[in-house]
């Protein structure tokens, strides 16, 4: 028996995987890889996470979370005072991905948006943003938001609450396409006097020339990011819009570059405090969308919410124009104001009274380090807005006992904080 003819001992071989040959481009691929998995049913996770959840979890020292628009976001990451100092003295970085983002595109996009919002956006340039207000046919506010023009026929509307049904119902007769792109974008908010400086260190050239409300495409650590000089802090600040997958890497890069300069990651409480100091009412909290206001009195016209809302009655037909023209002369019955409440410690209060009669509700409250006092955004009856003697009923726990105190309330003429740096061109790189 020659070795040639001897029956070869069965060598242990790889199991027969002829169907998978790495050299063969035509090899069959496991179809399960590309099967669309059914999405988890909504009840399995009642609160969603943002694309930045992992990186914010790593930053979190407090493990305090809150629910914003159905997403978990950090309430406080290190400490509110600490984060506030960074915001006003250096820079603070926040995850604002739960904001609702719509892409509005098509050849009639401009005409459609002119119909939708109260201000004239004819002259909104490409890569510019503007604050817009949406009204329904009775001239009551549905919501407000930032409108970006991304291209000639492409816009992005960023709002606090969803408006898809109203947007789609308003498209009748317009060649326009509307998509909710909220989940595809991660959004970071970088606010504070050093925010431009941090961006410069992150490798963005000529950041100082970016005007307020302007935007441009930049590359951060190799990732395309849409950078806009916007934000709700009443100070210099930027927002960064990137692919959801890129957002954590942008976050890490900014923390790495900005950390030595004083940048701190911050949570939702700081965003609320900054917004409160800047006197910016928030939809769903300080005012209700006319479609959500169960009590009809809670639906407000624009003049009740903002001191000088931009309403261009002469720009042509838009939703709510007839009603707003009629309302132009009559002052609203209730209005939203910023208040300062005496008393040093953080107070808990909501009812505002005048001579024993409840005349308003504080809807957002907080302690403002800028003014050194408690401040609030409140909705009050218009006729008492001028009266000085408002009182807030506050409750203070002391051990097991509770004390009710009446704190006197002052209506603020303007926001608690608004720094000229916000609008400075070029943006200052140093405080």
């Amino acid at each position, binding site marked *: 028996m020659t070795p040639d003819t001897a029956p070869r001992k069965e060598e242990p071989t790889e199991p027969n995987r002829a169907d998978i040959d790495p050299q063969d481009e035509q090899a069959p691929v496991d179809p399960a890889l590309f099967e669309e998995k059914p*999405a988890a*049913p*909504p*009840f*399995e996770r*009642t*609160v969603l996470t943002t694309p930045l959840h992992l990186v914010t979890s790593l930053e979190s020292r407090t493990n305090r979370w809150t*629910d914003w*628009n*159905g997403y978990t976001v950090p309430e406080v990451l290190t400490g509110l005072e600490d984060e506030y100092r960074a915001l006003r003295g250096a820079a603070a970085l926040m995850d604002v991905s739960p904001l609702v983002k719509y892409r509005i595109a098509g050849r009639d996009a401009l005409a459609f948006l002119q119909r939708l919002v109260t201000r004239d956006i004819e002259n909104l340039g490409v890569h510019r943003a503007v604050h817009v207000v949406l009204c329904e*046919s*009775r001239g009551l506010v549905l919501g407000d938001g930032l409108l970006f023009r991304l291209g000639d026929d492409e816009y992005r509307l960023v709002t606090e609450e*969803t*408006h*898809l*049904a*109203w947007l*789609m119902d308003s498209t009748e007769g317009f060649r326009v396409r509307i998509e*909710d792109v909220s989940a595809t974008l991660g959004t970071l908010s970088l606010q504070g006097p050093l925010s431009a400086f941090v961006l410069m260190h992150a490798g963005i050239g000529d950041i100082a020339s970016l005007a307020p409300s302007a935007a441009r495409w930049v590359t951060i650590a190799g990732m395309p990011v849409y950078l806009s000089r916007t934000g709700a802090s009443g100070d210099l600040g930027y927002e960064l819009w990137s692919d959801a997958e890129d957002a954590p890497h942008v976050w890490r890069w900014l923390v790495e570059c900005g950390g030595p300069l004083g940048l701190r990651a911050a949570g939702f409480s700081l965003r609320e405090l900054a917004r409160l100091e800047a006197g910016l009412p928030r939809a769903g909290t300080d005012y209700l*969308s006319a*479609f*959500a*206001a*169960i009590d*009809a009195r809670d639906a407000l016209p624009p003049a009740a919410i903002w001191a000088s809302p931009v309403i261009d009655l002469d720009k042509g037909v838009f939703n709510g124009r007839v009603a707003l023209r009629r309302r132009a002369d009559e002052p609203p019955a209730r209005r939203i104001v910023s208040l300062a409440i005496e008393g040093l410690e953080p107070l808990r209060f909501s009812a505002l009274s005048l001579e024993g009669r409840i005349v308003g509700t504080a809807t957002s409250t907080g302690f403002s380090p800028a003014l050194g006092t408690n401040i609030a955004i409140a909705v009050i009856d218009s006729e008492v807005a001028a009266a000085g003697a408002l009182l807030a009923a506050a409750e203070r726990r002391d051990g097991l006992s509770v004390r009710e105190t009446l704190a006197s309330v002052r209506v603020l003429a303007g926001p608690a904080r608004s720094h000229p740096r916000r609008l400075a061109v070029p943006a200052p790189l140093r405080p």
Partner: protein
Amino acid sequence: MERHDAIVIGAGLNGLVAAAYMARAGFDVLVLDRASAPGGVSAAHEIAPGFRLPRYTLGSGGLPPRIAADLGLAEHGLRFIRAEGGVSIFPDGSYHASYRDGAVHRREIARFSRRDADAFTHYRRDMLRAARGLAPLLSGPARVRAKGLFAGLRARLSFADRIASIAPDDLNDMLRLWALPMSEYLDTYFESDAVKAHLASAALIGGTLGPCSPTGASRLVGPWLSETGGAMGGAPDTLMPYGGPAALVDALTGVLDANGGRLRLEAEVTDILSKDAKVRGVVLANGEEIGADAILSGLDVKRSFLSLFRWKDLPEGLVERVGRVRMKGVAAKVNIALDAIPEFPYLPEGCPSLGGGLRLTGHIPAMERAFSDWRDRMPPRDPLIDVLIPSLVDPSLAPPGKHVLSALVQFVPETLHEGAWSDDRRDALRDLVTARLAEVSPGIETRILACEVLLPDDIENEIGLTGGDLAYGETTLDQMFMNRPFPGHGGASTPLRNFYLCSPSAHPGPLVMGGSGANAAAEVIAALGGRR
């Protein structure tokens, strides 16, 4: 002759609520029932040993917290379970669930349409606005303000200037809700057929209107009327008494007992003593006479007047008016005892909404076909089936690991075009229901230990509810509010002095569980002069 302050005929839920209110106010109350156990429609029932479920009703729904608190039912052991609002499974295998949490419910709708998820906010606002507008009407009489309120409502409806002063858009919102068919009304909010079908199927149960019948839209408000309806921003929840409706009956008899009221069973009232349109007592089947200052009937309006009185004793025109009240059976009840937990492969595992009920339904056109079958008195071919498996959330109702299943088969006529229901037809209905259940829960047919089918006719024969109409009279607008039980008598009082209706045949009817009883008690207490 034995005398009491008040006699309640029928120990059903509303009768007991009325009796409990009066007993707590210090009245000497006697409740009479011909059955050997209290409860009427809600009486305790065992389909097989250890399997408890209500025989005639689905068993969901709870007393409004206001009534439960007024009567102190919690002290008598009554607890409520809050379950999610239920699931619809469609013939294509897709499902739509209701969740209390606003964000979760919107995500559920977004599975069908993101646009509709947003539109739900607007829909919810309009439902809650309508519910808030109705609330003072529904609970008013319980606070002894019935007369003023109804007069107020009449004034509001009769003065054209009043209507002219409502903003045109608000008036339009109101008219749309009260005049439109359900399908058209839902079209103004939603685009997804599944979303519309899920809302419509919940609202159709128990009513005599199809999804395309005019004025049907107002039924959509029903689930939002509960005091916690939509409190968390999502869909209204399902409230169930722990232990089923029988537990409600137990707690109510407990309150009655504790306050000196008396319950006499196996005591059938056959006649009411009346003279000159004023009643003074009842006659029992054994000839015994019992007198009272007020007599409350928990029977339906037809039975109350047409079977308890000699017709010639009734005021002029009353017999005809009562005769014109429409009571029609629309649903058959199927009770099933299950050997093991049924599986629902079309639903994601652990879906919490299943505890609040399950509806087997097609989209709106299918519901409309089921409704036309009923109108044509055809045996149902593709009915809307409302299922509740209460033992999923309340294990006390069945032996461990086993379950009870209640099903209301909507749009089952009282009599067929060919005449009365034959045994074959009845078996065919049972087979249809089990086949439909087996479609969504394969293998369920092998787990059935006991099954009973109750047609509207059976319900009438067993408990004396005219037409087997569990709503105690059609709930169309001409028979609701100030028209219930008949025009000019929106409430418990009747043209006969000292005679009151405390069944859901009187305002507010099936809109508020126990509401008719509470309203009747308030009217009697006010008429007899307050607390004793």
